[in-house]
C-alpha cells in the first residue's frame, strides 16, 4: 500500500525511546495521522503501523498487546483481539481480508523516528 512512484520518504521524530513502555506500544500524532509505535525490547526491534484497526475502525492498536506467532511479530487489537503482523501488516488468523499499513522506524540519539512518505503525512 505504498505510493507507486519513488516519492521521497521522510523521517519524522515521534518521541524519546524512554517514552515507550517495554514490550508495548504508544500512539504518535504525526500531522493528522495516528501512528501506533511498538518496541519489542527482547530483541530491540521497533515497529510502527496505523493506529486504526480495520475491523471496526477504532483508534486502538497502540493499546494492544504485542506478541509473536511463530517468528512473526504482531499486535492484537484490544477490542476483538484481531492480530496483525507488524512486518507486512496482514491479519493473522482467519480474517484474511484485513490488513494494516506499516511504517519504518529508526532510532537516533534516543529519539524515535517514523518514516512516512510525503503524501502519507
Amino acid at each position, binding site marked *: 500500500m505504498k505510493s507507486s512512484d519513488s516519492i521521497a520518504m521522510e523521517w519524522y521524530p*515521534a*518521541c524519546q525511546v524512554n*517514552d*515507550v*513502555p*517495554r*514490550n*508495548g*506500544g*504508544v*500512539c*504518535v*500524532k504525526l500531522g493528522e495521522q*495516528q501512528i501506533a*509505535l511498538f518496541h*519489542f*525490547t*527482547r530483541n530491540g526491534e521497533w515497529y510502527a503501523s496505523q493506529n*486504526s484497526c480495520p475491523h*471496526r*475502525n*477504532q*483508534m*486502538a492498536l497502540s*493499546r*494492544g*498487546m*504485542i*506478541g*509473536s*506467532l*511463530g517468528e512473526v*511479530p*504482531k499486535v*492484537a487489537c*484490544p*477490542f476483538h*483481539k484481531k*492480530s496483525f503482523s507488524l512486518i507486512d501488516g496482514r491479519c493473522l488468523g482467519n480474517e484474511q481480508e484485513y490488513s494494516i499499513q506499516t511504517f519504518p522506524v529508526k532510532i537516533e540519539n534516543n529519539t524515535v523516528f517514523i518514516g512516512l512518505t510525503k503524501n502519507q503525512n
Partner: protein
Amino acid sequence: MKIVVIGNGMVGLKFCERLLADKSRSFEVVVLGEETLPAYDRVHLTDYISGKTAAELSLKPLDWYREQNIRLCLGEPVVRVDRENKQVHTKYNRLEYDNLIIATGSAPFRPKISGIGKQGVFYYRTIQDLDQIRNYARSARTAAVLGGGLLGLEAAKALLDLGVADTHVIEFSPRLMPRQIDETGSQVLAGKLRSLGLSIHTGKELIEVNGLEKIQSLSFADETELPTDMLVVSAGIQPRDELARAAGLQTGTRGGIVVNDKMQTSDPSIFAIGECALFEERIYGLVAPGYEMATVAAAVISQKEKSFTGFDMSTKLKLVGVDVASFGLPFADDNEYRSVIFENKVTGVYKRLTLSQDGKQLLGGILIGDADAYNMLLQVTINRLAIPERPEEILFTPAAGKTIHQNGVTHLPDESVICSCEQITRFQICDAVEHKDCESPEAVKKCTGAGTGCGGCMPLVKDLVEYKLKELGKYVKRNVCEHFGYSRQELFDLIKLKNLRSYDEVLDHLGKGHGCELCRPLVSSLLASIWNDMILKNGNDTAQDSNDRYLANIQKGGSYSVVPRIPGGEITPDKLIVIGEVAKKYQLYTKITGGQRIDMFGAHLNDLPYIWEELINAGFESGHAYGKALRTVKSCVGSTWCRFGLHDSVSFAIRIEERYRGLRAPHKIKSAVSGCIRECAEAQSKDFGIIATEKGWNLYVCGNGGSKPQHAILLASDIDSETCIRYIDRFLMFYIKTADPLTRTATWLNKMEGGIDYLRNVIVNDSLIIAEELEVEMQQLVDSYACEWKAVVNSPELRKKFAHFVNDPKAKDPSVQFEPLRGQKKAMEWK
C-alpha cells in the same frame, strides 16, 4: 443375496455392521433375536444395576436397523434350520437364506445340583435376569454367587450395589479366576475383595441347595453349610449349539459349533461366530475375539480375503473397584520361562511378568491392584518390543512405567493394534489426528471407533493423541499457548517457586518468543493472585488485557467506563452526590448496574486519572469492574429493615466484599448475601452465595449467570460467619490454583472429577490437608490489598500512561465521538 442372522447380541450386531459397511454390495439381511430387547452391551451389564437404563446400554437404536434395511425380529426364537432347503423356521415365519450366520452366543452353565431349581436362584446373563435379581434382592439380606471367575465377581458386585451387604462368592477351584491369575494373585485379589465387604470361599464344592420352595441355605462337600436368601449362578458358559446340532452340523464334544478359519461350519453356507463357535478346540468368551470373528465372516461373505487366526485373550477389568489384568502368558511355573514378581501387602498390589528364558522378551503377566501399565505391557508383548535390561523397573518404579508408557507410543509400529475390540491400529489413530482434524481422544473415538468397545485402550489413545499433536506442532490443549510448555496450574507453582514478579521475567525463564494475547493476561492474573503487586508496575502494564491496562472498561468508540466500588450496594447520600457531580463535570453517562452499583460511561482516557482523583478523595475505591477479579457482593436489605430478615445481610456482604476486593482469579467472581430463604439478593446464581438460616449461614458455590446459567450448590449449612469466611478463603484459593484459564466456577466444578462431593471434601473436610496453606495464602492477599486507582492517582509516573498521544499528552483522541440520548450521551455507532 439373502443373509439371515440368528442372534441379536453384540457379535451378531457387529457382523451386520461389518457386512453393511461395504455399500457396494447389496444384501437382504434378516436378524432374529430371542430376547425382546435389541442388542445391548452385555460387557457392562453391571452398569444396569448401578443406574444405567436398558436404553443407555443399547448398542444401536431401532432407527439404525431401519436405515440399514435390516429386518429385525425380536422375541422370535428360531425353532429349526432346514439345511437342505436353506430355510430357517421360527415360531411364526419361514425365511430363506443364501448364507446363514449363527450368533447365538452362550447360555449360563446350569450345574446339575440338587435343589438348584428352587425359588431365589438366578442366572447372570441378560437384562431380564438382572431385573429378576434386582427385585428379589430387595428382600434379601444375604446372597451367594456360585463361581469366582470374571462373571461371578461381577455378579457379586451387582449384589453389593443392590444393597445386599452380606454377599458370598463360592469358587470350586482353589483360587479365583483360575485361568487368568495365579495363586498369589488370587490371594491378593481375595484379600482386597474381603476388605470391600465380600466373603470369599475357594476350594468349595456345592452339593445341595436347601429350602422348601425358597432357597434357605447351601450345603458343601466339606460338610459345611451357608445360610443364604438368594443364589446367583455364574459358573461358566455353555455355547448355544442346539440348532446346529439338530441340523447335523459338526459340534464339539463339550459343546460349541466347529468352525474353520473362515468361520464356516461343516456346511460352507452356514457360519458361526461369537461364543457359540468352537475354533481349534477353544470357545472365545470375550467380546474382542467375537468381533474379529464377525469381521472375518462378513469379509468372507463379501468375497474378501480374511481369516481368523485365534485371538489374544488378555483382559483388564475393574472388579468391585479392584484393577485386575491378565495378558499373554500370564504365568508359567516351568523352567522354560523367567518370572518377575512384585507384591506390596500394604497397598494390596501384586504384579507378575513372564519373560523368555533369556529375559529379552515379555511374554505376558498379571497386574492386580494397579493395572496402569496394562495397555503398554500388552502392546510390548504383542509386538515383541524391546524391554529394559532390568524389567523389574517396570514394576517397581511407577515413573519408569509411565515413561515406558509415554515413550512406548513413539516406538510402536504402525500396524500395532491399539483397540483390540474394534481392531484399530496405531496408524489409523495417528491418521485421524493428522488428516481428519481430530484433536482430542474423544474426537478420535468418534472418528475411528477406537474405545467404543470395552474402553480399555483409551489411556493409550490419549497418549498417542498427545504425542501426535506435539509432533504436528499443535500444542497439547493443557499448555497455555505456543509460548509456554506448561499448563496454567503448573505456571502458578513455578512462578511462586522461582519468585518471578513480572511477565517479562516469566517469559524469559519459562517461555519462548514474544508472548501473545493469551499468555500475557494469563500470567498477569497469576502474578496478581500470587504477589498482589500493583498490576501496572514492574513493566507489567503491557502484559495486561485490554481493560486492566487502563483500569477501566474500554467501550465502543474508544472511551472508557468508571465504576467505583459500592460494597454490599450500600451508599450514603453524600457519596451519591459526589458520583452525580463527577459525572456531570466530565459529561459521563450514568447507569445503575446489576451488581448494585453505578457505572459512568464516556470517559476519555486522558480524563481517567482526574475522575478517579475526585472519587478517591471522596473515599471511593476501584470497583475492579474491568478485571477478572472479584466484582460485587450483592445484598438484600436484611434484618436491619426487612420484616423477614434473619440476619444483617448487608453488614456481612460489606465485610465479605471488603475482604476480597482486588482479588484476581481465572475469571470474574460474583457473590451475594441474602437475609432469608426468599433470596432477594439471588445468591444461588453466584460463584459463592450466602443465605441466612435460623442458625447461621448456608454457603452455596459455583453458580454462574451468563449464556448458560447454572445454580450454585450447597457446600455447607448453618455455619457461623467465621467458618463461612474460612470456607470461602479456601474455596477461592483452591479455584485460583486449580482452574483452567478463563474458566468460571461453574465450568470448573463441571469438569472436576468427583464433583461437588470432592470439592466439599477438600474445602470442608480438608481431605487434601491444604486448608491451612490456602487460608494463609488468602490472608496474605487480604493483608496486601491496596486500591490500584489510588496508586495511579498518587503516582505521576503512572498518570503519564493515561494519555492518548505520547507526543501530545494533553490532546484527547479526536476520533472519540458521542451522540445525545435521553438527556445524556452515547457512543457513536461503529462504522
